[in-house]
């Protein structure tokens, strides 16, 4: 590389082209701009007019200068100028191996690492050394090839969220062993130590020199969050002890609107020389339930992220009480205070126990439920053994029953004595009792006991050898108030008082909320041990990449439970969120208790930080400058020729100039949008249909039937247009498999004997259509043959077609149906055949005839289907000129029948469009009467 004035040139000989510039000057000067041709009839008047001043017919100097500058910029740009060229020669000549740790530790500074690797590749490329790249976190066989090839792949080499483990290192050693001959090594270390590194250094040292680049800053790692009571403890480690350092950890989670944002921030401080820093974060349970991750602010690495799992999630609490369905007073409801206490921090589920159990809640609260059905009890026991928390409250029913009298029951922590006791009432001695301070083993330990909480009634536990260890709260006189026992992985807790304020004032106090919170918090298992997860399989839901971003796990395989907790992260166990069916577990890069160690290198290895000034090729910028100057030249030339005044030309020229400067990526982005045009076409068509009312018929595949149906709807459309304010556009044929149905208010469906059944997708569409207010008019067209409409082949086909449809119970159109008076007053609905019955959705059984109104107060909705066989389309059908297509009946009576058929069509469309409006209209007199008019 030749150096000229601090700038290196890769092809300096091209600079000789600059010598040609003066020649170019002379040439350009001699050629004036081309004249503009202008047709002009009055040219005869111009003949003989001389240009008076001696105008220069040469290109103006500034235009020449512009062009010369453009050419000079192009020549210099092609000569390959490089700013800050790497001058020192690394001296190597043989093949070069670039080794990268490429673990999460280097992710924070990966940009620098990547740039530095780029510099190495550039140098190797100029020295024509073959290069191989080995990522220790994902080793592959070595491929020595030209540096330019690796240069292109460099952007794809990203850090992975794990450290090179023994298996990966074995693969790497194998790859190194398979390579032939000697090579020099450049090692980009992340600065973290891991076992087996020495073997690798030795293996590489045998082949040639090793040069190590290491990131100068210590690596930060965030250990998984742990929960100490109400606070969250966060610990950050750094790989090297250093001076005091302030960092902050951000808690990320969803806000009530569902968007991810930072919910809290916790400052941490490394003391001088310390390698760990930790702090506690207290959050309201409301916020804590929303946390999804903690991350060290400003460090983009998977190790600086601690995902949280559902140990912080809002728990689902099922509330079950014995109260019957009748509405009592809210404040007496056994569940009222529980609802108030739990609603802010938990998801409440209410209902019957058999409906709630399949939802698999975290907590089930039984308020004064004495006994469960045997099958349900089995199910609840199983649920508790799998880790559920059963919270029971006493009450009159429990006190009166013989539950847990004779022996201990699995769903009751203690045995109970008959009847319970009442203290401080009108008929009893003594004062209402207060609570004793909570003992040390109790989950409530530390809670303040307010003096105003008093207990007036309770159920009493039978003395029992095990009773003492099951009591977690007691009264001042030592009577157990709250008892607990473990059952499998779960536990059963009994409050010996009611959940309402009937027996005690406990539910009225803040202590009640705190107690529930303590119970609920401790109910969610802490981080499980690997033995706990023996035999379970966990599927990844979302996994972290090296930079700490979550991505969908897609088809990653499942992980065995013990590995999930104990094994170090690796390609088979990627950090992320795992789903185990009942709960979600977060697996972080670092396990609790992991320690970060700085890498140590033997004395024989040269370690250097990053820092060489970056090479900056200037060729691209200069060529862009040349293009820009040429674009300016276009404008200048136009200005000189007097063409610039035309706005269009100028705009074109400017667009050309800009297009030359637009980066190619944007052009690619534009190309990518092209395929969406087909989509737009479809949307346009849909918009055209949706902007007007369009009647539609289902294409049956029988050409004759389809033609008659289309002609029939054309006739009906014309009739509507002439007689009513409904003015539909031309009718459409609808392919159930292909077309969107939502645009059509009414579908006419002629049923033929051999019509194919719609596919299941089409059925789904049809059901959606019916549910969202569409109407289908089924026409079996056989009322002349089959009076009942159920025996003909078409009717049988209709039954098959309609089987999967969501059709309500039907009845023959009653006399007071709104179809009989939506527009015309009708009592028969003839088509080409006059006699067939017409079926619509049945009226509800409780529809009653109001006084003074000639018809019943029927359901609100529009009947989703109308079924008949009168072949209406044939009666409606007209040709292009509006003349009837098919004969109906005989003579005048036939014409009358056709007229009635049209009236039925009009009524039908009116019914679809206006619903029961006509039915409501008749109430107007009654309403006015009631208003006193």
């Amino acid at each position, binding site marked *: 590389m030749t150096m000229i004035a601090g700038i290196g040139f890769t092809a300096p000989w091209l600079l000789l082209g600059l010598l040609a510039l003066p020649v170019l000057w002379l040439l350009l000067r001699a050629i004036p701009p081309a004249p503009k041709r202008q047709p002009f009839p009055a040219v005869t008047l111009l003949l003989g007019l001389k240009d008076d001043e001696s*105008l220069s017919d040469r290109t103006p100097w500034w235009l020449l200068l512009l062009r010369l500058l453009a050419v000079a910029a192009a020549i210099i740009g092609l000569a390959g100028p490089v700013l800050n060229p790497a001058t020192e020669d690394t001296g190597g000549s043989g093949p070069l191996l670039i080794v990268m740790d490429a673990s999460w530790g280097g992710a924070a500074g990966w940009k620098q690492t990547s740039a530095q690797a780029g510099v190495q590749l550039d140098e190797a490329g100029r020295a024509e050394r073959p290069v191989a790249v080995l990522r220790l976190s994902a080793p592959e066989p070595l491929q020595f090839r030209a540096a330019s090839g690796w240069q292109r792949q460099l952007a794809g080499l990203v850090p992975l969220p794990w450290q090179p483990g023994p298996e990966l290192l074995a693969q790497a050693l194998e790859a190194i062993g398979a390579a032939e001959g000697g090579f020099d090594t450049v090692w980009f270390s992340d600065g973290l130590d891991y076992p087996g590194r020495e073997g690798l250094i030795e293996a590489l040292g045998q082949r040639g020199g090793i040069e190590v680049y290491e990131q100068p800053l210590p690596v930060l790692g965030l250990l998984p969050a742990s929960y100490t009571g109400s606070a969250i403890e966060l610990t950050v480690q750094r790989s090297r002890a250093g001076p005091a350092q302030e960092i902050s950890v951000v808690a990320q989670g969803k806000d009530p609107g569902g968007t991810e944002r930072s919910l809290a921030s916790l400052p941490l401080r490394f003391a001088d020389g310390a390698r760990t820093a930790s702090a506690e974060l207290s959050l309201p349970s409301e916020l804590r339930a929303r946390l999804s991750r903690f991350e060290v602010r400003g460090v983009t690495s998977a190790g600086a992220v601690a995902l949280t799992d559902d140990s912080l999630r809002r728990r689902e609490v099922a509330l079950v009480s014995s109260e019957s369905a009748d509405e009592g007073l809210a404040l007496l409801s056994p569940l009222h205070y529980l609802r108030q206490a739990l609603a802010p921090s938990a998801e409440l589920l209410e209902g019957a126990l058999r409906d709630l159990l399949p939802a698999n809640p975290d907590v089930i609260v039984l308020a004064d439920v004495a006994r469960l059905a045997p099958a349900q009890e089995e199910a609840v026991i199983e649920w508790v053994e799998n880790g559920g928390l059963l919270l029971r409250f006493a009450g009159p029913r429990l006190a009166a029953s013989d539950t847990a009298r004779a022996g201990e029951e699995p769903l009751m922590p203690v045995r109970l004595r008959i009847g319970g006791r009442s203290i401080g009432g009108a008929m009893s001695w003594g004062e209402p009792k207060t609570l004793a301070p909570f003992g040390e083993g109790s989950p409530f330990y530390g809670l303040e006991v307010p003096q105003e909480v008093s207990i007036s009634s309770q159920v009493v536990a039978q003395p029992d050898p095990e009773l003492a260890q099951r009591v977690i709260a007691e009264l001042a006189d030592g009577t157990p108030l709250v008892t607990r026992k473990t059952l499998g992985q779960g536990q059963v807790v009994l409050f010996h008082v009611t959940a309402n304020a009937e027996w005690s004032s406990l539910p009225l106090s803040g202590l009640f909320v705190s107690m529930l919170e303590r119970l609920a918090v401790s109910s969610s298992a802490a981080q499980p041990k690997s033995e706990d997860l023996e035999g379970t399989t966990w599927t990844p839901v979302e996994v972290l990449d090296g930079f700490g971003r979550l991505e969908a796990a897609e088809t990653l395989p499942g992980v065995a439970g013990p590995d999930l907790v104990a094994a170090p992260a690796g390609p088979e166990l990627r950090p992320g969120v795992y789903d185990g069916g009942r709960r979600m577990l977060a697996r972080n890069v670092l396990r609790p208790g992991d320690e970060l160690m700085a890498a140590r290198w033997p004395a024989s290895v040269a370690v250097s930080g990053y820092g060489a000034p970056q090479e900056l090729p200037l060729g691209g910028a200069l060529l862009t400058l040349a293009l820009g100057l040429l674009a300016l030249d276009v404008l200048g030339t136009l200005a000189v020729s007097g063409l610039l005044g035309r706005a269009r030309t100028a705009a074109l020229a400017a667009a050309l100039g800009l297009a030359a400067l637009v980066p190619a990526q944007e052009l690619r982005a534009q190309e990518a949008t092209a395929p969406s045009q087909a989509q737009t076409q479809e949307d346009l068509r849909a918009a055209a249909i949706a902007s007007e009312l369009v009647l539609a018929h289902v294409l049956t595949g029988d050409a004759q039937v389809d033609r008659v149906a289309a002609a029939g709807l054309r006739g009906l459309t014309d009739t509507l247009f002439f007689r009513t304010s409904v003015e539909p556009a031309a009718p459409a044929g609808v392919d159930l498999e292909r077309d969107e149905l939502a645009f059509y208010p009414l579908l006419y469906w002629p049923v033929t004997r051999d019509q194919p059944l719609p596919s299941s997708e089409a059925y789904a569409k049809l059901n959606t259509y019916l549910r969202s207010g569409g109407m289908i008019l089924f026409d079996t067209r056989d009322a002349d043959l089959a009076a009942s409409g159920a025996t003909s082949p078409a009717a049988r086909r209709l039954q098959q077609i309609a089987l999967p449809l969501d059709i309500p119970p039907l009845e023959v159109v009653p006399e007071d149906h709104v179809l009989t008076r939506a527009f015309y007053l009708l009592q028969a609905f003839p088509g080409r055949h006059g006699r067939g019955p017409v079926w619509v959705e049945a009226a509800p059984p409780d529809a009653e005839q109001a006084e003074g109104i000639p018809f019943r107060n029927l359901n609100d909705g529009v009947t989703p289907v109308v079924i008949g066989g009168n072949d209406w389309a044939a009666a409606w059908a007209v040709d292009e000129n509006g003349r009837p297509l098919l004969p109906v009946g005989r003579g005048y009576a036939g014409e009358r029948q056709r007229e009635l058929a049209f009236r039925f069509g009009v009524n039908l469309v009116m019914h679809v469009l206006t619903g029961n409006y006509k039915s409501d209209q008749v109430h107007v007199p009654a309403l006015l009467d009631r208003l006193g008019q």
Partner: protein
Amino acid sequence: MTRPAASDAATGLRHRAEAEASALPPLLVQARHLAGSVLMGEHGRRRAGTGDDFWQYRPAQAGDSRRMIDHRRSAMGDVQYVREREWQIAQTVHLWVDTGASMRFASTPKLPQKSDRARLLGLAAAVLMVQGGERVGLTGGTLPPRRGNVQILRLAEALSDDDAEDYAPPGHRALIPHARALFISDFLGPYEPVEQALSKAAARGVCGVLLQVLDPAEEAFPFAGRTLFQSIAGGVTHETLKASALQERYLDRLAERRDALERLCREAGWRFGQHHTGDPAQAALMWLYHALERTAP
């Protein structure tokens, strides 16, 4: 087998004729439309004479033949009246519309070509004249003056021809003495043929109207920079390095040409008018109508 061939040939001819004729109706319709707006106004000679329209009743005088007495009017009194009719005479109008290539020019696509406007004005004037009962024809003997609506169709057809040459000289042959004439052109070609035509016409007692149709660009000369001016057919070119410097002198020459034409008209007893394609055609037609009225001999 001959019949299909013959019918094929006939069909082909018909097709060609239709294609040719398709250019006519728009022009004709436009011209009639334009003329329809001018029809109100002065009519007739304003004196008694031969004609169809009632002019006045006057008492019968000696010398009036008995047949001239209007008995219906006379029966209302003792005096015998003669019903006089307005004097209406048919004039002959010669039309010349420049079909040279120089007329096929419009400076912007929004403007009509000069030839379109000239034909429209010429044909509209002809429609007016024919409706007024005059005989209209083309100069040069290509279409002798006749009356009637069929003549309009013939005129329209004849006017649709295009000339390949840049500047066509005015036709001055076969002028009927003491007729009227209407010459429409841009008059940007050589001056001598115009002078010659007008002097020939004046010698035959023909007077009429010269209408110069110009494009706004020809009036403003909005050009700048190095420009090569070409006539439409490409026969005449002029190159300049700085078109804007020519503007003043060009406008002088244009005014000079106009003065020359006006002077020529004055001497020959003609009237000279000017029209720009940027202006509405109706004003020009109104002016033409009045000018033709006034130049009546």
